[in-house]
C-alpha cells in the first residue's frame, strides 16, 4: 500500500512536470504580449523593454522555464502580471470555493445521475427508460449558461428559495451545484444504467432475492456497490471536464472560484495565473484519479492495488 502510494505519487509528480512543460511551451508561443498590457498604452518602447527585462521575459525559453520550475519546487507559482499579487495567494483565496463547488456538483450529479440510471435500468425498455434517456441527453446538450440562468431565474428570483448568486452558505451552493450536476448527470445516468443492467443480470442478485431480502436491500446493498465501480472511475476522469463547466457556472452564480480567475487570466494572457490554475487543476485531476483508485478496493475487495 505504502509502496503503491509512493509509486503513484512519483508518477503524479512526473505528470505535473509534463503538464507544466507543455502549458508553459504553449503559452510561450502564444501570439500575445503580456508586457504591453502591463506597461499600459502610454508607455514608451523603452519602458516596455524595461519591464520585459524585469520580468525576465526577454530570456530564452529554457531559462524562463527553468526559473519557473525552480520557483515551483519552492512552492512559488510566480506573480500575476496584471493583478500584481502572488498567484498562490490568488489561487489559495479561490480554491476552497471551487473545491466546494466541485464536491457539491459531484454529489448532485451522482444523486441525479445514479437515480436516473438506476430507475432506467429497473424500468429497462419502458417509456420511462426512454424518457430518462432523452433527459440525460438534454442534460449533456444544454448550454450551462442558459441552464444556470434559468435555474436562477426560477428558483432564486421568482420563488426566492435560494439567494441570487453569491457564496457563503449551503443555500448558495445548491443552484450552481445543480447546474453543473445536470451535465454530469447525463453522463452518469448512461453509465449507471448500463452497469446496473449488467449487474442485475448477475447470479448473486438472484441469490439475494432468494434470501427474501427487501427490494431496496437487494438494490442498494447488493447491486449498487457492484455497479458503481465504473462510475467511480468516471469521477476521476470527470474532474478534468469540470474546469470547463466551472468557468461558466462560477460566473453565472458569482461563485468566487478559480474558474473565474482562469477566465479573466485567459482573456488578458496573464500567464502566471494560467499556469497556476492549470497546475492546480492538474493536481486535482491527478489526486482525484488516485483517490478513485484508492477507493475501489474498498468497494470491490477483489481489486488489489499494484
Amino acid at each position, binding site marked *: 500500500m505504502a509502496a503503491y502510494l509512493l509509486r503513484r505519487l512519483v508518477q503524479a509528480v512526473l505528470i505535473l512536470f509534463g503538464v507544466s512543460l507543455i502549458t508553459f511551451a504553449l503559452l510561450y508561443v502564444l501570439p500575445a504580449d503580456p508586457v504591453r498590457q502591463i506597461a499600459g498604452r502610454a508607455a514608451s518602447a523603452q519602458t516596455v523593454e*524595461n519591464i520585459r527585462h524585469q520580468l525576465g521575459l526577454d530570456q530564452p525559453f529554457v531559462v524562463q522555464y527553468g526559473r519557473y520550475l525552480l520557483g515551483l519546487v519552492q512552492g512559488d507559482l510566480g506573480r500575476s502580471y496584471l493583478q500584481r499579487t502572488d498567484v498562490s495567494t490568488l489561487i489559495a483565496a479561490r480554491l476552497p470555493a471551487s473545491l466546494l463547488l466541485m464536491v457539491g456538483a459531484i454529489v448532485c450529479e451522482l444523486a441525479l445521475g445514479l437515480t436516473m440510471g438506476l430507475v432506467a435500468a429497473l424500468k429497462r425498455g419502458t417509456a420511462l427508460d426512454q424518457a430518462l434517456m432523452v433527459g440525460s441527453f438534454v442534460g449533456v446538450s444544454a448550454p450551462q449558461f442558459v441552464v444556470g440562468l434559468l435555474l*436562477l431565474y426560477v428558483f432564486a428570483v421568482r420563488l426566492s428559495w435560494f439567494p*441570487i448568486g453569491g457564496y457563503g452558505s449551503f443555500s448558495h451552493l445548491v443552484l450552481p451545484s445543480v447546474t453543473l450536476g445536470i451535465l454530469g448527470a447525463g453522463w452518469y445516468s448512461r453509465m449507471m444504467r448500463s452497469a446496473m443492467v449488467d449487474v442485475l443480470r448477475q447470479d448473486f442478485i438472484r441469490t439475494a432475492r432468494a434470501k427474501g431480502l427487501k427490494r431496496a436491500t437487494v438494490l442498494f446493498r447488493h447491486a449498487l456497490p457492484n455497479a458503481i465501480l465504473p462510475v467511480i472511475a468516471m469521477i476521476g476522469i470527470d474532474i478534468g471536464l469540470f474546469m470547463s463547466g466551472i468557468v461558466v457556472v462560477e460566473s453565472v452564480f458569482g461563485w*468566487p472560484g478559480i474558474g473565474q480567475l482562469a477566465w*479573466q487570466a485567459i482573456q488578458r494572457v496573464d500567464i502566471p495565473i494560467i499556469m497556476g490554475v492549470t497546475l492546480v487543476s492538474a493536481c486535482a485531476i491527478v489526486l482525484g484519479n488516485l483517490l478513485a483508485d484508492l477507493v475501489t478496493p474498498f468497494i470491490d475487495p477483489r481489486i488489489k492495488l499494484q
Partner: protein
Amino acid sequence: EDKAAAASAQAGEYTPDPDAKEGGAIVVTYKDDVSTLDPAIGYDWQNWSMIKSLFDAMMDYVPGTTELRPALAESYDISDDGTVFTFHLRKGVKFHNGREMTADDVKYSLDRVTNPKTQSPGAGFFGSIKGYDDVASGKADHLAGVEVVDPSTVKITLSRPDATFLHVMALNFASVVPHEAVEKWGADFGHHPVGTGAFKLADWTIGQQLVFQKNADYWRDGVPYLDKITFEIGQEPIVALLRLQKGEVDIPGDGIPPAKFREVMSDPEQKARVVEGGQLQTGYITMNVTMPPFDKKEVRQAVNMAINKDRIVQMINNRAIPANQPLPPSMPGYDKSFEGYQYDPDKAKEMLADAGFADGFETELYVMNTDPNPRIAQAIQQDLAGIGIKADIKALAQANVIAAGGAKDEAPMIWSGGMAWIADFPDPSNFYGPILGCAGATPGGWNWSWYCNEDLDKEAAKADSIVDPAKKDERDKMWSDVYGKVMADAPWVPVFNEQRFTMKSKRMGGADDLYVDPVHIPINYDYVYVTDVQ
C-alpha cells in the same frame, strides 16, 4: 506668476446637495476581479473610481463635470512659460494611518510612479516632468523636476510646456501615497492601500468582495455621505441586474447588460432609475496605413463612406450616437460643424474603383471577442461587403488583438470596441499622442493604424504648449484642426460614441450627473447618498 489661474479654478466649486443624508451603505457589483488598489498601477474599469475614493491627488474635478478643481493642493501657480507648476498643499490632511500628508509625500509619490521598478502603466503621463527620461531609463531615482520647497509647497518643473499637466496631476497615477505604508507592504500595497481619500478599505476578501468605510477624518467637509460601500465581485451583469430588481444591489457596476437593455427601457418604473450620460469614448475602426491597400487614402476614405453607422447604433439598441470624428462630443475641441464622411456606398464604390479596386479586395478585421463587438464587426463586415471588400473577421481575446495591432504588418483593420480609447482625462490631446501620433506608431504601440504625420505631430505639440487658461479656446480650435486633418487622411473610421446608461436602486439619491460622472465610473461614490436612512 499668474494668480488668475488659481482663481478661475476656485470658481467652479461644487455646491453640495441640500437633500443629502449622511449614513447608510450601498452594494455595487462587478463582474471582473479588482486587481489592485495601488494608484500607481490600477488602470482597470473597476479599480479606477475605487482608487479615486481612496486616494487624492493635487487636482480633481468638480463632481459630475470635466471641470478641474484643486484637491490636495489648496492652490497652485503656473509660470508664464507654462513649465513651472507650484502647488500649495492643503494643511492638516491626514492619511488613513493618521499621519499628516506633506510635500515629501507628493515628491515620493511622483518618483515612485515614474520609477520603472513600479511598472506603472501610467508612468508615461509624467513624461513632461524634467528628469523623467533619466528616471525611466533607470539612471536616476528621483525626478529632477520635482522639488520640495517647504513641507506644504511642491514645485514641479517641466521640460516643455504642457497644457494638460493639471489633468495629469488629477490622474489616479498622481495620487499621493505615504511612503511608510508603501514600504511596509511592498508589492502588496495594492491590497493594503493607504491614502487620503474619502473612504478607506475596511475589508477585502479576494475574489468576493471589498468593503469601503467612510473616512471620518476626510479633509473635505461634509462628504462622503455613505458610511459603507460593499463591492461584490464576480457577478454576471445579468444576475446583477436581477438582484438590482430585487433590491439587493444598488449599482450594477458593469451597467445594464445589452440583453436586458430593452426590457429595462420598456418598463417605465425601471427606466426611471436609468441615468443616461455622455462618455469620453469613441469607437473606431483603424486601417493600417502601412499595409496595402490601406496605404491609399482613397481606399480609407471609401471605407469611411461605406459604414452604415446608424444601423450599427440601432443594432446596439441605440446605446450610442454615430460619430464622425475622433473626439467625442462632450470633449473640448469637438467640432460640431464637422461633417465627416457621409454614408454613401455608391460613392465609396466609385472611389474604390478609382483607386484601382473595382473588384474590391480581401482583408481582415480584428475584433475583441466579447459581446457586442463580434456583432458590430459583422455589421461592419457586411457594410464592407457592400462595396466589394471581403473582410474576414478575427475575433480574439483582448490581449491578442492588442498584440496584433502593435505589430506593423499584422492587422489591416481593427474594430476598437472593448479596448477603445476612453479618455484618461478630459482634454483633446488625450486622443492623439499614443493612438494617432508618431509616438504610438511603434512596434507594440497603440497606434494601430500606424498613421504618422510629422506635421500634425508638430501642430499638436504647439497646441499643447499653450498653457494659458485664457487661451483655452484657441488651443481647442487648434486641436479641432488637428483632428480635422487626421480625418482628411482617414486612418480611422469613427463609428460611434458610446452613451453611458447607469442604473441605480430606488433608494439612491444625488444628482443624475453624479451617476454619469465622466471621470468617476460608474458613479461618484463620494457624493451619492441613500434616501432611506434615518
